[in-house]
């Protein structure tokens, strides 16, 4: 939709401005040498900021314009060999919702920012507690009792200030879920309980959005990408049966290794979806027994 609007209403003035931005990028780009010896045209953090200020546009827009002219923001150079300039551009244009900014969410947010996913919506109504310190990347001794989403915004700003973060200090529910995820390209489930996950899945299905599910307990984690037509968690939890609010994690806790492991898998799925590469893990629950280094797949029936 945005793309259609942009192309239809883009006035000539903007086209001229685009030309000026391109010119400025070419003036300020500099030759960089990669470890391979390859020389490329790079754009430094400082130059990105300067151009954004000069043209009153966002840093993200400067970076997209640079990549469109085969100039690489230096911070993304080590991504380019794997995902290419078009891939980096797609990530910068993408918008990902992260529901939950705890153990999974903290790591997911960190990785999305470093991948250069350009827009993020972060939703969590919670504040940090001392017992979050063992696993939640965003939690520090200094921000106990402070908002998780505020920490997320701060952290992303420190890692990659070109990323535009919209934060919602709220717990997700049926009444507000649509307003958080509408317009996103991918939704990441970093929640900590099963009933709310089912609300999220229902909304993602209704709004035709891919959802990347992750959950952890002890040294066990699971991962699955759920496309709108998939049964997803519906294959495991039936609304007419008693749905446990939580799983075994209430007894065995969650050491940091597991959420970090699963969060990386979730971001990989999101990147695959945005870049349309690889094969998303659908209709299969990928089950990680991290201690044994064992990965299994539990196929789920696609029949209702």
């Amino acid at each position: 939709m945005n793309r259609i609007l942009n192309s239809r209403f883009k006035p000539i003035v903007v086209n001229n401005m685009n030309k000026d931005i391109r010119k400025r990028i070419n003036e300020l780009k500099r030759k960089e040498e990669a470890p391979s010896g390859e020389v490329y045209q790079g754009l430094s953090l400082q130059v990105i900021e300067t151009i954004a200020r000069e043209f009153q546009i966002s840093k993200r827009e400067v970076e997209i314009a640079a990549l469109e002219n085969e100039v690489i923001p230096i911070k993304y150079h080590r991504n380019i060999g794997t995902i290419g300039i078009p891939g980096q551009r797609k990530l910068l244009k993408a918008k990902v919702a992260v529901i939950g900014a705890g153990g999974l969410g903290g790591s997911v947010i960190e990785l999305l920012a470093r991948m250069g996913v350009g827009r993020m919506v972060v939703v969590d109504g919670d504040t940090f507690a001392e017992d979050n310190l063992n696993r939640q990347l965003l939690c520090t001794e200094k921000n106990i009792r402070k908002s998780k989403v505020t920490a997320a915004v701060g952290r992303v700003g420190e890692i990659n200030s070109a990323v535009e973060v919209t934060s919602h200090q709220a717990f997700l529910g049926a009444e507000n879920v649509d307003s958080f995820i509408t317009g996103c390209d991918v939704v990441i489930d970093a929640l900590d309980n099963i009933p709310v996950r089912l609300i999220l899945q229902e909304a993602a299905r209704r709004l035709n959005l891919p959802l990347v599910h992750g959950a952890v307990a002890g040294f066990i984690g699971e991962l699955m990408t759920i496309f709108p037509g998939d049964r997803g968690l519906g294959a495991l939890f039936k609304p007419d049966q008693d749905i446990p609010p939580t799983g075994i994690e209430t007894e065995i806790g969650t050491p940091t290794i597991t959420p970090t492991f699963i969060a990386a898998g979730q971001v990989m799925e999101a990147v695959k979806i945005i870049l349309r590469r690889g094969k998303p893990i659908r209709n299969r629950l990928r089950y990680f027994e991290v201690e044994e280094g064992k990965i299994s797949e539990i196929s789920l029936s696609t029949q209702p």
Partner: protein
Amino acid sequence: MYGIFRKYAKENKFKVEIDPGTSVEGLMRKLKIPKMIYMMVLVNQLKVQFDHPLSPGDEVHIFQPIGGG
């Protein structure tokens, strides 16, 4: 069998001989797997209850639902 249930078997994937009509609960008794609050059983990719009768060739997955984040 996955996670905590691994200790009830040498391998996480194996064949078991049962009498026809044995339920999931009967299979668990045979394998000495205790019934737990956090437990999920899939037979041929479908979630079932403990009284579900098993047939020759059924594929059974026993694991724990997890919900942490």
